[in-house]
C-alpha cells in the first residue's frame, strides 16, 4: 500500500488535530495558549492553525506535565531549556566543523 504523506506546514493543524495528537482536550491546549506557554500570540485558539514546531512543543509540554505531575509553567520552563539546548548543540556542531586540533 502506498500512501502520500502531507507536510504539516503545508496543511496546518486545527486546534482539534493538535489536541488529539497530544492526547489532550482542546481546552488543555487553549489554557496553555492563553498563558503563553506555547510561545504563540493568537487571539482565537479555535480559528488559529498550528505548525510542526507547535506540535513538538505541545507534545513535550504534555509529556513533562504527565510524567512528572509538573505544573504547566514548570513544564514550559523545562521545554524552553530543551529548545535552548538544541539550539546550542547546533551551534557547537557548526563550530566543531571549523575547528582543528593544534
Amino acid at each position, binding site marked *: *500500500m*502506498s*500512501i*502520500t*504523506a*502531507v*507536510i*504539516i*506546514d*503545508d*496543511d496546518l493543524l486545527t486546534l482539534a488535530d493538535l489536541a*488529539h*495528537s497530544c*492526547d489532550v482536550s482542546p481546552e488543555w491546549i487553549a489554557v496553555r495558549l492563553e498563558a503563553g506557554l506555547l510561545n504563540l500570540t493568537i487571539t482565537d485558539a479555535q480559528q488559529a492553525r498550528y505548525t*510542526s*514546531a507547535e*506540535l*513538538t512543543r505541545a*507534545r*513535550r509540554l504534555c509529556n513533562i506535565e504527565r*510524567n*512528572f*505531575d509538573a505544573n504547566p509553567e514548570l513544564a514550559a520552563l523545562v521545554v524552553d531549556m*530543551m529548545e535552548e*539546548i538544541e539550539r546550542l548543540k*547546533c551551534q557547537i*556542531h*557548526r563550530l566543531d*566543523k571549523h575547528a582543528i586540533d593544534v
Partner: protein
Amino acid sequence: MEFQDYYKTLGVDKTASAEEIKKAYRKLARKYHPDVSKEADAEKMMKAVNEANEVLSDPEKRAAYDQVGQGYKSGQDFRAPPNWDGGFEFSGGNFNDSSDFFANLFGQAGKRSRGREQYQGRGEDKHAKIVIDLIDAYQGTTRNITLRAPELDATGHTVNKERTISVQIPKGVKTGQHIRLNGQGSPGFGGGTAGDLFLEVQFREDARFRVEERDVYQTVPVTPWEAALGGGIEVNTPSGAVQVKVPTNSQTGRKLRLKGRGIPSTTPGDLYLLLEVVLPPADSEAARKIYETMAHELAFNPRTGA
C-alpha cells in the same frame, strides 16, 4: 510470548505502594527521557518504563496483572488464560511499539469495550521518527515503514500485527518537521475513524552539508589558482551540477549564495557555497620550486596583513 515483569522494569517490590511506584517511574522517566538521556537504549527503555507504569499505576490493571502473572518470571513463556481479566474494570491502552505482552493483555482491540459499546471514538494518533537524506528533501522519496498495531487473532486474543506501508515523502520537507499520514494511527472504536500517523523528519548526518531551516551550506574545495584568479568551476549540489563563477582573490570561508537552491518550497531556501582553498602538497621538485618562486616573488605575509 514473553512475560514482562513490570515490577522489575520499575525496580520496585511487588508490595510497593502507589507513591513508591510513582517515585520509581519519575526517576526512570528522567533517566531515560529521549530528549536528554545519554543512555544508548534510552528510547527503548523509556517505552518499557511507560508500559510498566501504565499498568502498575492503575489499581485495576495492576490487580489484574498481579493475578494473571502469579508464578511467572520475566522472559518466561506466557499465554493469558481465557477471561483472565474477569472482575476487573479498566479500559484498554495503546502504545507505539508496545510489547506483545502488553498488546495481548491490555491492547485496545482486545478489550471488551466496557462502557464503550455506545461510544464512538477516533483512534489515537501515533508518532515516530524517520531519517532521510538531504537530497530526498530536494526530490521527494519513497520509504517503506513497518507499523505494529494490536489486532484480534482467530482465537480472540490481541496480538501485535506488523504491516509494511510505502510512504511517499514529498519534496520540500525539512528537519524537525512532521509529515502526516491520514488514517495510519490506531484503529477507531465503535465505528470511529482511525487516528493519524505523524512522522518527525530528521536528515541523516552528512559531512558535506549543513542545514539551517531551508538554507543549505556546502563546503567547496578550490585550488589556490581558482581562488586567486577566479573563474568558472563545476559544483555538485543537492539539486545537481551547477557552474559557479569564483570571484578573483577569494579566500577560504568566502560565501557564495545561490538564491533559491536551498530546500524547495513556495519560498525556497538558498544554497551557500563555502569556499575552502586547498593547497597542493610540496611533494615533488616541481611543486617545491613553484612555492619557492612564490615565496621570493610575492611580498606576502598574512600575519602582518601585507
